[in-house]
């Protein structure tokens, strides 16, 4: 995946207003199959796997015993005893090894990343492109996956994404990847969209305040600290790895949490590691930042002490020796207009 095909800002705007096509084939795909697959997934992930009917998808987390986030993933139930996890590219091997080490009873974990290409068509016109090129029903619900026939192959179309826009992510057998890309590219162009690269993907996900695992959170961050408590199901689904620590931390309260910051003056990109201060005292660090093309302002995700997490809190960010005023704002920075569709 290149950083950009043309200008990243132009690609970003195409996704927000029309559509963009991303080649995210670098993402990892792990298949978990067998009579024990459901129980295994339930024990490994923080969300409630029992809520997944066949064809459903769920955003969830994989935690270690300390409640630290190993990876975030989308878990699909493809068949009663067959699940597919889409994980971060850099974590595929670690996740696969972790899963295997947990001792799956009656479940096999297989890395099928090489077999699949993953193409994402995102933006308000994304579903129209997916309907024409892939044959999806444009009313397909959010966070569901359907099997389609396209480009002479069996493909999987999921109504998910990582941009804060509507759209589909399409799993295509690797052999058909080029044909699929070319066809989707023509479809996207017809709708006035563009191919989009990694730079646009980053600004889009940041505006939507979607954390990037390994950058905004990791094994030293718990779901509560990452602001992802909504994908932790303590009540249903029984025990999972890390649950004990998460229960304790919920009782104690977190020491720090990921927040959205907006710079109050243009002073450059707030980058990973830049210090965040409140009344001159260091209270946290920027985890990622960018110039938001939609808002026209510099924005950041930052991990800050609990006392400074309330929207409206004034802080400063150390930007190359300057102390730049910033403010905690509600999460996310950008939310697309409601379309009435689920998810």
């Amino acid at each position, binding site marked *: 995946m290149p950083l950009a095909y043309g200008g*990243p800002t132009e690609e970003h705007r195409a996704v927000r207003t029309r559509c963009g096509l991303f080649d995210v084939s670098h993402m990892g795909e792990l298949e978990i199959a067998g009579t024990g697959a459901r129980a295994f997934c339930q024990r490994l992930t923080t969300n409630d796997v029992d809520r997944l009917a066949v064809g459903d998808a769920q955003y969830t987390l994989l935690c270690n015993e300390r409640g630290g986030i190993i990876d975030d993933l989308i878990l699909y139930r493809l068949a009663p005893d067959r699940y597919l996890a889409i994980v971060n590219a850099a974590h595929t091997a670690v996740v696969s090894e972790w899963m295997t080490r947990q001792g799956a009873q009656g479940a096999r974990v297989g890395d099928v990343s090489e077999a699949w290409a993953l193409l994402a068509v995102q933006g308000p016109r994304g579903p129209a492109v997916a309907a024409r090129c892939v044959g999806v029903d444009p009313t397909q619900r959010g966070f569901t996956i359907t099997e389609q026939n396209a480009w002479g192959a069996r493909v999987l179309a999921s109504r998910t994404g990582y941009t804060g826009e509507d759209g589909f992510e399409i799993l295509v057998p690797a052999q058909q990847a080029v044909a699929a890309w070319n066809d989707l590219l023509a479809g996207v162009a017809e709708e006035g969209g563009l191919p989009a690269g990694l730079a646009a993907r980053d600004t889009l996900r940041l505006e939507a305040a979607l954390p990037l695992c390994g950058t905004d959170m990791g094994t030293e961050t718990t779901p509560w600290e990452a602001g992802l408590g909504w994908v932790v199901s303590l009540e249903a689904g029984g025990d999972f790895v890390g649950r004990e620590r998460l229960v304790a931390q919920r009782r104690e309260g977190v020491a720090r949490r990921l927040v959205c910051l907006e710079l109050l003056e243009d*002073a450059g990109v707030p980058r990973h590691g830049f210090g965040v201060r409140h009344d001159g005292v260091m209270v946290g660090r920027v985890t990622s930042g960018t110039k938001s093309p939609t808002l026209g302002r510099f924005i950041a995700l930052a991990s800050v002490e609990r006392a400074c997490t309330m929207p409206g809190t004034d802080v400063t960010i150390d930007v190359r020796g300057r102390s730049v005023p910033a403010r905690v704002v509600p999460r996310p920075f950008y939310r697309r207009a409601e379309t009435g569709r689920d998810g």
Partner: protein
Amino acid sequence: MNVPESLRYTSEHEWVRAEGADGVVGITDFAQASLGDVVFVELPTVGALLEQGQTFGVVESNKAVSDLYAPVSGEVVAVNEALGERPELVNEDPYGEGWLLRVRMTDAAQTTGLLDADSYGRHVESEQGT
């Protein structure tokens, strides 16, 4: 890649155009293309003194932040105020509306020690080759 014959260049990808005793300074087409969409430019204030080869500001895209090096010594007599609102001018017109600042040169002869268009073009090719 656009490398105008009439300008002089640094190996750090700044250009300077001599206009009498003044030098107008910017970054090259190659530099803006490498950075991607410019989102912020930090420049000295009018009256600041620049010394050839020293950093005088930064130009930044979401991808990277890059130091700016003075191609000549002198006093800053004007900065491109438009870049505050529209830093993208550096991408759109690096040799025109995307200029950075105007320097009253202490020694106009310094420009002759800089790269000409041919040498700069070869320098870029060699950097791309690595």
